[in-house]
């Protein structure tokens, strides 16, 4: 198992390098010249050229890329073009906030999703099943920015039981996490349900019944462990979608997280900041996928790493 994790870790290195490559070159494709933006309106050509020179933006792209790559490996993510602060410092302030948001969201996705899926699967085609799946369908269909605003309207404006925005207490976490986790929960619920229904029909469930086991033991011990195998994959993928979702949710709820930082940086054409932010988000995704693989192997020992 340790060997598996180690090998899997080594595999992530090329992935991370690939990510830096993509991040770097995509930013070059974004219209808008950072030097022009920095120089401000009506700046002379000389000023702009000076800024370019100063930032090294006039060098060939590949040279810039390799410089960037080497600096990253030394922990230097460059300085923000906006306020000349080290990018890493900015990221490290905001990363925990986004991680916290992502953590609570994925918990909502898993707990809410699986619970709903199991409830549905135990009595398929019943009223409970139909209602739960209808809610799940809404969950998948609703755009998160609208859902977030609706939650905010009901719980913060009308009922006034939860804060509107910001990030101070655990109460502040509830609405954003719910907004972010709901879509995933709906997908996980549908996946859990169909996976459970598939598993319940299997011969080994009949064997478990023939042994005289209680229905509860059959569902949670014999069926669920098998049904979760495909669900784990979906949860891992959902985490990626969730990281993307932080961008929207942090903007709606005015949370000073990584997502919002990236949006602001893109608006400012603050290249080092965007690159740093996206790179960190990608790395979180890579690490989460590593966890998913390890879990997957734990649940399904037939998986061997080739």
């Amino acid at each position, binding site marked *: 198992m340790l060997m598996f994790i180690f090998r899997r870790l080594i595999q992530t290195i090329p992935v991370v390098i690939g990510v830096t490559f993509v991040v770097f070159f995509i930013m070059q494709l974004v219209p808008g010249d950072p030097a022009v933006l920095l120089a401000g309106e009506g700046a002379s050509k000389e000023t702009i050229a000076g800024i370019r020179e100063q930032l090294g933006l006039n060098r060939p792209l590949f040279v810039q890329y390799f410089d960037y790559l080497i600096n990253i490996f030394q922990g230097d993510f460059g300085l923000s073009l906006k306020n000349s602060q080290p990018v890493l410092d900015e990221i490290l302030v905001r990363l925990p906030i986004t991680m916290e948001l992502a953590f609570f969201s994925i918990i909502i996705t898993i707990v809410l999703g699986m619970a709903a899926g199991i409830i549905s699967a135990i009595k398929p085609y019943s009223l409970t099943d139909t209602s739960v799946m209808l809610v799940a369908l809404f969950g998948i269909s609703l755009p998160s920015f609208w859902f977030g605003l609706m939650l905010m309207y009901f719980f913060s404006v009308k009922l006034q039981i939860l804060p509107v925005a910001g990030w101070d207490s655990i109460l502040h976490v509830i609405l954003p996490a719910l907004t972010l986790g709901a879509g995933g929960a709906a997908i996980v619920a549908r996946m859990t349900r169909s996976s459970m229904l598939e598993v319940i029909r*299997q011969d*080994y469930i009949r064997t478990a019944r*023939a042994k*005289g*086991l209680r229905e509860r033991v059959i569902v949670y011990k014999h069926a669920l462990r098998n049904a979760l195998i495909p669900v784990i994959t979906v949860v891992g993928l959902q985490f990626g979608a969730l990281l993307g979702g932080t961008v929207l949710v942090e903007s709606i709820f005015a949370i000073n997280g990584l997502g919002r930082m990236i949006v602001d940086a893109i608006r400012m054409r603050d290249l080092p900041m965007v690159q740093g932010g996206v790179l960190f988000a990608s790395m979180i995704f890579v690490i989460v996928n590593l966890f998913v693989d390890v879990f997957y192997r734990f649940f399904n020992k*037939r998986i061997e790493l080739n």
Partner: protein
Amino acid sequence: MKMTENNKPILEVKGLKTHFFTKRGVSKAVDGIDFTLQKGETLGIVGESGCGKSMTSLSILRLIPSPPGKIAGGQVLYKGKDLVTMSEDEMRKIRGNEISMIFQEPMTSLNPVIPVGEQIAEALRLHQKMGRKAAWDRAVEMLKLVGIPSPEKRAKQEPFQLSGGMRQRVMIAMALACKPEVLIADEPTTALDVTIQAQILALIKDLQTKLGMGVIMITHDLGVVAETCDNVAVMYAGNIIEYASTEQIFSNPKHPYTQGLLDSLPKIYEDQEELRTIEGSVPSPYNMPSGCRFASRCPFQQPICYQQQPELMEQNDGVKVRCWMYTDQWTGQVEKQEAVK
């Protein structure tokens, strides 16, 4: 009929009906069958696919998928208690404890993510109230009993690490762990190699004599019947059409269907160009004929066969057969003796 022991039967099935209520209509998978099982007896239930033999076995333990399946009538008396009307809680105490079952698909009948030892041990903890350690030790012991080499190591493995034959041995170990009074073996050897088949059958036979249980052997393989069974019930389209001792079935089959079944076996001493078959096909369970269900395929068919279904009637030699040919109403050209061969 050969009676192994004279005391009361351990299992008695009376008029059992299992029907499936689907959109296409009612499928009468099992339509009123009767048989008894004595302690220590092996009863074979034979028939082709879809004749209702597996549904019969699942009905005994009330394991038919429901809905759409339902036991529509009859009784299953185990030691005098009716399993059909029993509460689910009581039924659970019987399953895997007093009546066990081995299924025909060893590859898919074990849970793929649970170590096989645990799959055996959990039944022991449940029914025999054993502690974790005791149940595990007993599971290992059972694996040893069914002939699995290095059982301590195998118990910790998951089914995918075991071969088909070994998995079937695990199934048997699981079924026998609680020392049941009745074992239902539903095609226990169908999915296995011929060499393994013989081993598994010998194993069941051996354990049967050790534990003294009654065995219901469900199979379509007449070879298995000849080797293991005391009595045989031949099923056709949801009915038992002949019920006799194994000896009588093989030496003097009475029902034209049984005759056809035996006829379709390849013969060593005859020079056969091609294998004989029974012409036609089984009637749809959704639309059973009102007369004899075998009539349209029967070489001896008479008008009466299409009018009314014959009853399963006991003959002088103790054989029970469901055929007009053995009644006074028979008017056919074929003499009884000739039909019997």
